């Protein structure tokens, strides 16, 4: 089962290639809503591989999934702050931290997501729903340029991006709660 490792590393490699990296980071919405999530996806794939290889480590560190998901929330919230995006462009150390921390929480996410069951997933999902809505609102309404590296117009586009994601999430919730789940084996806990 090396496939996830290969896929994960490949995506990471592509993201690191300087022209691609610099291009992605030059546009705010791509930086925030494509590059950062892709780094988490990298972690997700690598996590699948590692879970297969060393399940004991995950049991030891992240038995019920809660420590992992807390770190995940903390790190992703950190990267949602407008100013961190800015500093990643200014300080190489920040950039390095970005490329390490996000794959890392991706690894934690894939492990935790299975363990926190339906209840935990719904809770996390709804939290991100309101957080994304709020971020969209913040970027759209801000009368000032928040980042040094991105212009006001870029901020607005990013704001609509967040609103778009929030709308998709709302539609997902609606279809989930109003379609039938009685045939499913176990959606307990």
């Amino acid at each position: 089962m090396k496939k996830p490792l290969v896929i994960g590393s490949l995506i990471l490699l592509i993201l690191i290639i300087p022209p691609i990296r610099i291009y992605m980071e030059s546009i705010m919405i791509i930086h925030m809503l494509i590059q950062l999530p892709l780094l988490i996806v990298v972690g997700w794939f690598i996590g699948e591989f590692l879970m297969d290889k060393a399940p004991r480590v995950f049991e030891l560190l992240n038995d019920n999934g809660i420590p992992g998901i807390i770190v995940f929330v903390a790190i992703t919230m950190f990267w949602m702050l407008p100013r961190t995006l800015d500093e990643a462009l200014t300080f190489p150390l920040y950039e390095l931290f970005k490329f390490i921390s996000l794959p890392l929480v991706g690894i934690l996410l894939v492990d935790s997501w299975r363990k926190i069951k339906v209840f935990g997933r719904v809770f996390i999902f709804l939290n991100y729903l309101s957080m994304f809505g709020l971020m969209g609102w913040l970027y759209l309404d801000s009368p000032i340029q928040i980042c040094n590296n991105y212009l006001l117009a870029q901020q607005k586009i990013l704001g609509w991006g967040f609103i778009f994601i929030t709308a998709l999430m709302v539609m997902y919730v609606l279809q989930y709660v109003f379609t039938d789940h009685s045939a499913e084996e176990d959606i307990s806990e």
Partner: protein
Amino acid sequence: MSTAIENKKLKSNNKLVSTSLLLGGVLIAVMMIFGILMLLAQGGVIDVSDAAFYQFLTIHGTGMVGAAALAAAGVMWYFLNRYVELSKKIFIWFLGLVLIGVVLVVIGVFSFKYASAWTFLYPLPAISANAWGVTGALLYLFGMLILGTGFLLLYIDTGRAIIKKYGSLGKGLGWDVLSGKKKVSDAPPKAVVASTMVTIVNTTALIAGAAVLIMNIINVINPSFTFDPMLAKNLTYAFGHIFANAIIYMGVIVVYELLPKYANRPWAVSKLFLVAWTMSTAFTLVIYTHHMLMDFAMPKWMLIMGQALSYANGLPVLVVTAYGALMVVYKSGIKWDMASGLAFLSMFGWTVGVVPAVVDATIVVNHVMHNTKWVPGHFHMYMGLGAVVMLFSFTYYLAKIDSNVKESKLDKIAFWCYAIAMFAISAQFLVSGALSTPRRWAIHYPGWMTPAVFGAIAGVFLVIATTIFIIHFVRYLKNRGTVGSGLNEQKPA
């Protein structure tokens, strides 16, 4: 099902639910005292500084809504748990988070003078003209956020459990019965229908509330981040209106469960019942716009919708419930005691309380009555005489089925004392409103004072009556588990 194990499980659930009711009941009684202090101040009887008045207003509004919601959630959880499998662990988390939230709010209001009223309308939390500082605002806003998180956990669990048992929230509302796929006799029980409605509307409310609370927190920490105030008001009232409204929809479950048992008659779910609850679910979500009838920037269609649907909002459920309750009780030879009496009183209070609300939701009337004491008049009636009465109906019910504590003459006196006093307080607000007394004013002109003083006196009787209710409940808690009446609970298969 009547095994000892099953019974033991139910008993330990009783303890948890009792905690939420005791906490809620005591908080309600304490908040009443702040209500009396406000009326005394407005009536010119005592001297309260303006700053203190608004702290009282803030704690009274927040505390009453929070405490009533806490206790009502206990009632809902108790009955819903008979039909679906809820998690006890989550309920404990819910209690814990609410408690932490309350403590933070109290500290923010009393130690740091936070006084934005419970509606914390943006940008007031950050712009207080130095009446309070950043710390107070943050304590209050974070307190509300934590409290809301507790409720969100609870509703995720009820939603999860309802979907697991019935397939979807639509089916929890009985949509498959309405579409003819299922027989009416197989419809979900009333407690499940009501809980599904509350789960839907309150989850929505809490998500909107979380967003607007965090927005306020950002603005308080760094005022250079500003937001569109009209959207903020929309989200704030989507949260506040829905959350406060849902209290009565949780409390009414006790009426559904208790009256048929007492009257020894079935109260079957009908298609009309299901339609009514679905309509109220939809209306409750959109009519918060009646809080914005004065905001000219709002799209006109939203306001017209707010007005039209506000008329229609509570009515479907109220009508099927009041009518159903009458039919169950009528000539049934029902035995009246505190629990059934309070349940019946609550139906009366709800019905009467809706009338002034409907009047005020009319745009033409609202132009005159907006922000007068007419508004607290209507919601004190239907909260104080409706929702809160349901909660105490439940505490007497629990005491009856789970202990041998007897009701005394004193309880009966308290019943009438409560009914009359709460009615008097509501009437006092309505009279003030008719006199054009503005709401939320620390100081009244002499011509406005008389009703306030009258209300304060009634308030004292109300506190006494409420204390007697609580004492009965505490006596139950001390004698919990001693065999109760023949109405003893069994989990339906």
